[in-house]
């Protein structure tokens, strides 16, 4: 699969928007049409955050995703809010470190990843988003690992290039678990 309508959702501070930016930037490098739309509001670390990313070959109409084919849920309120909107046959990725219930639907593909725990074991809980991203890449084939590594090198500012390595380590960890 090379196109998608994606909702990424979780707490503020989990790097939800960053995960979306990596997908958007990768799509731009590939010459795809894309849109990236964040939730915005009087929110802070610990509040809810989500972001809509659309990747397509054709011009994108509404940038608001109402029926995603990919949902990444990194907390329970996000799974509760978006589970029913996922298209039949779509993917739901669940950070099971933080979500203590299963997906109720049986017409979607569900992938449970112990992302926050794995990231913690890697030495930084903040990398849970990258673990989730890795599992998303493996399950959906939306981009290759190399494309994502290339994207990080091109999109991160000079001062943050040092983070590419640790990010990619987490991505590869997530990739290996699916």
């Amino acid at each position, binding site marked *: 699969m090379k196109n998608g309508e994606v909702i990424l959702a979780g707490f503020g501070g989990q790097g939800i928007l960053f995960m979306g*930016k990596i997908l*958007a*930037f990768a799509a*731009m490098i590939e010459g795809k049409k*894309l*849109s*990236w*739309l*964040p939730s*915005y*509001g*009087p929110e802070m670390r610990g509040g809810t955050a989500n972001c809509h990313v659309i990747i397509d070959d054709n*011009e*994108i*109409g*509404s*940038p*608001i995703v*109402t029926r995603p084919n990919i949902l990444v849920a990194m907390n329970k309120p996000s799974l509760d809010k978006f589970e029913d909107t996922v298209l039949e046959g779509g993917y739901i990725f669940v950070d099971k470190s933080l979500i203590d219930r299963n997906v109720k639907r049986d017409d979607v593909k569900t992938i449970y990843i112990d992302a926050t725990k794995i990231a913690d074991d890697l030495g930084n809980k903040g990398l849970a988003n990258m673990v989730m991203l890795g599992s998303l890449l493996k399950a959906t084939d939306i981009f290759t690992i190399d494309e994502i590594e290339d994207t990080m090198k091109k*999109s991160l500012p000079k001062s943050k290039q040092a983070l590419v390595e640790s990010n990619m380590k987490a991505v590869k960890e997530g990739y290996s678990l699916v």
Partner: protein
Amino acid sequence: MSEKVLMKGNEAIGEAAIRSGCRHFFGYPITPQTELSAYMAKKMPKIGGVFLQAESEVAAINMVYGAASAGVRAMTSSSSPGISLKSEGLSYIAAADLPCVVVNMVRGGPGLGGIQPAQSDYFQATRGGGHGDYHLIVLAPNSVQELAYLTAEAFNLSEEYRIPAMILGDGTIGQMMEPVDFDLIPEPVYAQKPWATNGTEGKREKNVTETLFLEPSELEERVFEREKKYDVVRENLQRYKSHDTDDADIIIVSYGLTSRVVETAVKILRSEGIKAGAIRPITLWPFPEKVFKEVHPKAFLSVEMSMGQMVEDVKLACDCSVPVHFFGRTGGVIPTPDEVVNKVKEILKEVE
């Protein structure tokens, strides 16, 4: 091939303005447009420009008034409640026939309202906003690329006609990121400014910027003169995009973000064999009324993030020759393609 960058709408306005020769930005923060001020704060000092965060919206627009009067490309931005505060200043700037660019990233209203996207400032923008007989050139982009393009256009048009220009966006257009290519925006075209209050150097009579004319006949004469200019703009500046209108039973009219929702809705309708078309006004003032005389649907539908404002211009433009319907969500709620599809089906049932 030129380089595309991934940017938020608000930041793209800032970059386009700088490339258009704007070196004077007077801001005051308000969600959802603060990224534009932040971008200008970061960039302007590096290129010898002025970024000034004023003590209020009223101060910011009056700083624009002063800078524009001196003949430089000046800009300010805000969102709905802040634009209301700037309206007095806008009336003065229009009365003084000065060019400037004002950005309104609209949020839900009235009052402080909310901070989510809306289009409920259409009346305020297209009817001038402040007091007196005047207009702004109002441009309504629907993508980040077009936001950059129209920002550059706004500076050029505003200078050409000596009419303040407004970019009317909404929270979503400002917050979303899309690829943008700045090589595709228009080059700055600078007008002669013999009226500018930029120092006589002892060589000419002094220029005066004024808006007070106590003699009624003198004021009327000035308003008449300005109206002639508005007539030229009405004739020459109508811009829109349309598609699938030739055989359309129903034409959906929408602008800005909403036009992209409608885009998706039209695709769904066409795939079901329903003859729907779309007109998207790009200039909201002047309203692109000519195109409404060239199409022959059984009905129009205006879709807006308001309780129905542009719908009045659609009725005027088509002389109510066919029924003009309305569908809108407001307060920060964005209509979905499915809602638009259902409304169209409901209307066509009535028509047939």
